[in-house]
């Protein structure tokens, strides 16, 4: 069909173009006002041939003209937003579009496959400890200098530098050699296991075999060594000092209002985008996302924890909006209740089991969480490697009688003598708050345990959680993956981690499995065995796996939004950055004209 229609359309437009040209020439001859006429006629004439953007990428036939290849994306206006670079501060990027100014070593596709990014190939030696990554020699910074292994080395050293105090420095701890020691100030950063063999060869040495290292190196978009040394880690926060080797360059950052990126004409990498211009606008209140979207002021609403049950109801009842709703698995996030097992009453397994038995997922999920989640009986979400969800379905089923009996056995018949609890939440959105409230009400009703729910601000909560001993006795909290391997998710529960729970056998299994390089099935089995301990000890009661849904305007199309291997068609994690190829897989269709005025 298509090849037939295109020449026809082209023919018709060329006739029109000729006509316009004549009119334009006439106008130019007749009146001094003519130049305006010519300019306005020009875009009409443009679609004659295939449209090619500044990076030589040909736009699909249904794509809007280049000047309308604009994506408007919201970011949270309340959170601290100082940087667009992962290695500067992960949690000061305000959920905006970031990490676009250089290529990470690897990138993910929509099926979460790890593909070459800035690294064209990689290999590991027989010891399983030394990894060699070959860099794409074509990559250039837009100041004319080449991207070299030195830039990556400088970036990793910056991350390990205790004077930088990077908020994500824990991530490479125990993996990259000497990283932990460097972060603790015990060895100089020059001694971490990241080395430039030559200008385009990068070598990583790990503490132990880490088969998941390539997946982990998703977060490796480098800073430029020169700019880092001259202007410091925030050089990309100002267009004047910003330098890019990535698909986009920063052209504007108006604090508290918007950021603007434009396609980088000097980009030499392989993640070539269609979209010409990215506008990232601040939305202060999550409740205002949907109205702004409906008013066509933003093209996208991330659904993870932001859309309220009322918003979902509206979307469901509106055929237009529900067609624009794309559910997916997000970052495989699991919400769970956690107890401080180091102190009474939760040092008692019977108490924890009693609590586990009063969680009624079958009522809470369909009525409160609705489309935003699926029930969780364990930590790893179905679809995540080593997930074994079905096996834990009957470990602690909803059973009020059993729960009452267990609590009585623990010495608190009908909750008598049980201390009053405060369940603390980490600045959660409406859905988790409602889940927490429902569980609190069930605890009161069935076990006679009084629970207050306190939704705290992020920092205060983390301060209390991280305090030693922890000040968070009872909580509903979540964790989502950083990279697609059970070692990441299950690592959260290792001794000395986020929670006071500690189990030697669990630690052994997770650590062994993590660096296990043999049969993948055996590795999976070890992780599953560890997860069994986690679930059975009931220090954590898993509630739901988040399945966020995003709203995407229908004029955003492309291979990245077509169904993946599981039939999910959505804005896949990790989103629009050089960590994923979503960047090169979406464009704006002509349909955009029905939604907003073309830019002047």
């Amino acid at each position, binding site marked *: 069909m298509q090849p037939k229609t295109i020449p026809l359309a082209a023919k018709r437009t060329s006739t029109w173009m000729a006509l316009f040209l004549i009119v334009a020439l006439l106008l130019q001859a007749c009146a001094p006002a003519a130049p305006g006429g010519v300019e306005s006629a020009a875009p009409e004439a443009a679609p004659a041939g295939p449209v090619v953007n500044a990076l030589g990428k040909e736009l699909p036939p249904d794509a809007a003209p280049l000047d309308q290849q604009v994506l408007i994306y919201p970011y949270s206006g309340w959170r601290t937003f100082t940087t667009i670079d992962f290695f500067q501060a992960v949690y000061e990027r305000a959920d905006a579009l970031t990490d676009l100014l250089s290529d990470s070593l690897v990138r993910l596709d929509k099926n979460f496959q790890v593909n070459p990014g800035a690294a064209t190939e990689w290999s590991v030696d027989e010891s399983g400890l030394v990894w060699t990554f070959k860099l794409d020699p074509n990559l250039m910074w837009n100041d004319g200098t080449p991207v070299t292994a030195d830039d990556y080395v400088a970036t990793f050293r910056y991350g390990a530098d205790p004077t930088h105090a990077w*908020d994500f*420095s824990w991530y490479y701890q125990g993996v990259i050699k000497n990283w932990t020691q460097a972060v603790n100030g015990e060895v100089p950063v020059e001694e971490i296991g990241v080395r430039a063999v030559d200008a385009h060869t990068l070598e990583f040495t790990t503490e132990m075999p880490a088969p998941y290292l390539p997946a982990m190196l998703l977060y490796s978009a480098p800073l430029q060594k020169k700019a880092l040394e001259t202007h410091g880690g925030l050089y990309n926060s100002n267009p004047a000092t910003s330098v890019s080797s990535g698909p986009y360059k920063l052209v504007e950052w108006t604090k508290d*209002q918007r950021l603007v990126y434009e396609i980088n004409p000097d980009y030499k990498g392989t993640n070539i985008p269609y979209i010409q211009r990215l506008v990232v606008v601040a939305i202060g209140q999550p409740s205002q996302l949907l109205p702004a979207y409906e008013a066509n002021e933003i093209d996208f609403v991330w659904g993870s924890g932001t859309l309220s049950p009322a918003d979902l109801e509206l979307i469901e009842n509106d055929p237009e909006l529900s067609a624009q709703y794309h559910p997916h698995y997000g970052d495989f996030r699991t919400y769970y209740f956690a107890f401080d097992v180091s102190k009474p009453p939760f040092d008692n397994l019977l108490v924890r089991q009693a609590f586990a038995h009063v969680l009624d997922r079958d009522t809470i999920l369909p009525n409160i969480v609705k489309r935003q989640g699926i029930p969780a009986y364990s930590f790893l979400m179905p679809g995540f490697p080593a997930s074994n969800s079905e096996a834990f379905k009957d470990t602690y089923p909803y059973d009020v009688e059993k729960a009452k009996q267990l609590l009585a056995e623990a010495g608190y018949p009908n909750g008598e003598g049980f201390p009053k609890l405060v369940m603390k939440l980490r600045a959660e959105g409406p859905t988790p708050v409602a889940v927490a409230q429902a569980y609190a009400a069930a605890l009161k009703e069935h076990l006679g345990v009084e629970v207050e729910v306190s939704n705290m601000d992020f920092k205060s909560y983390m301060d209390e959680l991280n305090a030693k001993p922890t000040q968070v006795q009872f909580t509903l909290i979540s964790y989502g993956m950083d990279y697609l391997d059970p070692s990441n998710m299950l690592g959260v529960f290792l001794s000395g981690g986020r929670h006071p729970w500690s189990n030697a056998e669990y630690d052994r299994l997770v650590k062994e499995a993590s660096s296990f390089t043999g049969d993948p099935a055996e590795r999976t089995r070890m992780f599953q065995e560890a997860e069994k301990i986690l679930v059975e000890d009931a220090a954590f009661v898993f509630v739901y796996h988040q399945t966020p849904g995003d709203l995407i305007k229908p004029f955003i199309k492309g291979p990245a939004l077509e169904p993946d291997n599981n039939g999910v068609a959505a804005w896949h994690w990790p989103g629009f950055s050089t960590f994923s190829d979503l960047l090169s897989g979406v464009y704006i269709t002509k349909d955009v004209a029905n939604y907003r005025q073309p830019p002047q």
Partner: protein
Amino acid sequence: MARYLFGRLVGVLVVFFIVSVVIFLLMHAIPGGPYNEDKVPLSAEAKANYMRKYGLDRPLVEQYLLYMGNALRGDFGVPFQSPTETVSGLIARTWPVSASIGGLALLVALPLGLLLGTLAAARQNTWVDYLTSATATLGITVPNFVIAVWLVLLFAVQLKWLPTGGWGQWQHYVMPVAALALAPMALTARYTRTSILEVSRSDYVRTARAKGLSDRQIMVRHVLRNAMIPLLTILAPQIPNLITGTIFIESIFRVPGLGKFFVTSILARDYPMIMALMLLVAVVWSLVYLVTDILYTVVDPRVRLEKSRT
């Protein structure tokens, strides 16, 4: 007058000193610090470095003296929330935005409130009175963020007359100013009505009436003027709040003002910013207060400036 101003100045300095000490102690009493431990705690070394970098490892007294010393020289430090600019730069960028909305809201609220209040008093216990009272009640009973949300749904989503939010064009002013003006307007109307009724019953108005002055003359010369006194007392403290911005309105309408920093500075433990905001409000407030005191003498000549000092 000079003596009065000198006295005020001394008073203001005393106030500044106490306020700065109180806020300084309170903000350092909040657990945690400006460093980022959002996922996993930092290493002890990294945390120590961070504290050293910003001088947070020094004794509180030293930190206080250092900050105030720098502040006196016009250096308010660098906000942790936005390390690429200075605190002064941030305030210079955001405050005019908040002030323009707050100022406009005041310009709308005051005359409207006075008018409604006067009307209500003049037509006491008629439908005019009831209608204005109802409006006033609405302004004081419905939180402005609820009103703001409905304004967005009505004028931006349904009618599509205005953008849902943003900044830069005149359209962006309409809803924030309206939402912001409602409460002070209601307050003004209510106090105007109350004061007018009260003053109308006072002895000197009766005397004036007995003297044969017209209602109009009485209204302007005695009633309104005297009614202004409690109104000044009530409205003056609202002004600093109005012109330094409010997170409730600004976050809903995406106004890039100063308002959100009153909250985010605390959430982010942004010490330099907390101190600067506190000093800013103190300065604004003392100016407003000074003007109010002078206005008192204008509307009520029986109050002399010296009186309020001694």
